[in-house]
């Protein structure tokens, strides 16, 4: 019996160590980025001594980011593209997910297979011909091009996720509404969607984060600085001879904040959505 208690104690201790290890693994790089963003440039490029806490705390990097590099317009572009992508994907996923969850029909398996295939194709393989198509349509260097690409890139996964959220809601709920004389659309809007609200928000977060974090398509479809999204704009800062690490880190911190806050608040639903969307039992 005593042996057993010791074993349990050791087990808990080991588990605590493992948990501490992973916490440090995640937090240390973030700490380093945040710390760098508050250092003066002289302190950052001091090869003699690397400081683990800024000797002089300065917000200079953030001021420069907004003043010299027009970060405000990058943020605005990113927000416009990501919010509209999120809304559009959510709306289309509600329709598609409902169709997939509540009906069985000919071609359904093919459709699901097609969704799966879209997840396997290298994005760049689609971006190249899309570049040609967008150029013909005059869409290169517009926010619309990014919007279209981000919608199609995030739609399949979100529709599948939405489907499994629908499947969790008992059909009897809707049937009861039909018996009461409710039309299909009305029961969907007034009864099913409110119950699904967490799932809907999770899908919006998926699409928003997907669009917000994307870099490659941004560098290809956009070529003037007034339309740069945050990643594209910040990438242009690396290419220069004199890399301003403080400013870059400040930009990184600002880029992470919206998605990190969203994730922290929606963590439970996002995790639920990830697991239900990816693995169906």
């Amino acid at each position, binding site marked *: 019996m005593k042996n057993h208690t010791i074993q349990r104690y050791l087990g808990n201790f080991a*588990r605590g160590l*493992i*948990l501490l290890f*992973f*916490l440090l*693994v*995640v*937090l240390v*790089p*973030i700490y*380093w*980025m945040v710390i760098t963003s508050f250092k003066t440039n002289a302190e*950052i490029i001091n*090869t003699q001594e*690397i400081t683990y806490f800024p000797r002089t705390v300065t917000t200079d990097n953030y001021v420069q980011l907004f003043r010299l590099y027009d970060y405000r317009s990058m943020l605005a572009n990113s927000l416009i593209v990501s919010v509209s992508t999120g809304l559009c994907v959510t709306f*289309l*996923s509600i*329709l*598609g997910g409902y*169709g997939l969850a509540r*009906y069985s*029909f000919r071609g359904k*398996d093919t459709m699901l*297979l097609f969704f799966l295939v*879209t*997840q*396997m*194709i*290298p*994005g*760049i*393989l*689609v971006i*190249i*011909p899309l570049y040609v*198509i967008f150029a013909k349509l005059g869409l290169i260097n517009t926010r619309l091009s990014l919007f279209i690409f981000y919608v199609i890139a995030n*739609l399949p996964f979100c529709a599948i996720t939405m489907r499994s959220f629908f499947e969790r809601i008992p059909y009897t709920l809707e049937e009861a509404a039909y018996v009461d004389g409710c039309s299909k*659309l009305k029961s969907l809007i007034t009864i099913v969607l409110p119950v699904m609200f967490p799932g809907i928000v999770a899908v919006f977060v998926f699409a928003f984060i997907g669009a917000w*974090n994307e*870099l*490659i398509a941004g560098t290809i479809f956009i070529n003037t600085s007034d339309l740069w999204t945050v*990643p594209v704009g*910040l990438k242009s800062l*690396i290419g220069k001879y004199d890399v301003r*690490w403080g400013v*870059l*880190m400040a930009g*990184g911190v600002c880029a992470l904040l919206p*998605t*990190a806050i*969203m*994730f*922290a608040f929606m*963590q439970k639903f996002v*995790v639920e959505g*990830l*697991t239900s969307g*990816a*693995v*169906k039992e």
Partner: protein
Amino acid sequence: MGILVFYLALIAVACAFGIVFINKRTGKKSLFRVSNSMQRKAEPYLFLLPVMLLLLLMFGYPLINSFIMAFQNYKLTSPGRIYFNGLENFRNLLSETDISLIIANSFAYVVISVLGQFILGMTLAMALNKQFPFRGIYQALVFLPWSFSAFVIGLMHRWSFNGEYGVVNDVLLRLNIISSKIAWLGTPGFSLAVVIFAMIWMGIPFFAIMILAALQSIPKDVYEASYIDGCGPLRRFFKITFAYIKPTVIVTILLRTIWIFNSFDLIVIITNGGPANFSQTLPSYMYTKAFSSYDFGLASALGVLLMVTLVVYVTVFLKITKYNKAGNF
């Protein structure tokens, strides 16, 4: 031609919405006066029409295009001279000087990243599988990298592994592990290692989330029975825990392998393939080829090869693991 297709598609989408909503609102009276059962049969298609149309138009159509481009002399720098050239793109591709190096890089990058993410993610999930104080907050913090953009993660690592001002060199020097600063991003081998390190860091949460969910779905009484039967911890892990989470592990590894193979923003940010292609993988090389020399034909040929590789990989993987339910991804 392109514009026409685009507008037609827009109109079709608009019509689809119209039909769906008018039909819903008017109930039995259908817009096209089709019979009730016909309408019911059409319903799922109407719900899925916008999604499918968009995907076919903006995903399927470009994909077919790139398959055609793979067999064409298609250089954006000379748009007047586009013609079919058979297998020349593929021949050119295989005679590129660094192609074997790039293939080897891709292989190492994918295998080490997936293994690292899997082992670490599984460890984290097992540790998280018991209740402890502040677990909610802990999870929110430790899963945070999932929401981070590869771009910022790349910046973070590029800065930390900076040869002159980087913190990694400083720590290693203080611990007396190395005696002089290492130019991580400028040394063959090390540059790819940094990319892999960043990729593992980025992917641990996803593996942990998936495996944790699977662990929590294991019924508790199976464990109780194993205690009564006097089953040892190792045997319990392999015969119960791993047996239960195996389907999840298989699907997660499958999806992640493909995802990691295809994603190259970390490479673009951290090393840009350097030094001299030593951290270049096939997709990042394709990106470089397409948008530095604008040789879309060659890039598409490479893309087609990538797709074939992935299809073969998926088929073989599913055969070996005897898993036949991956259709429900």
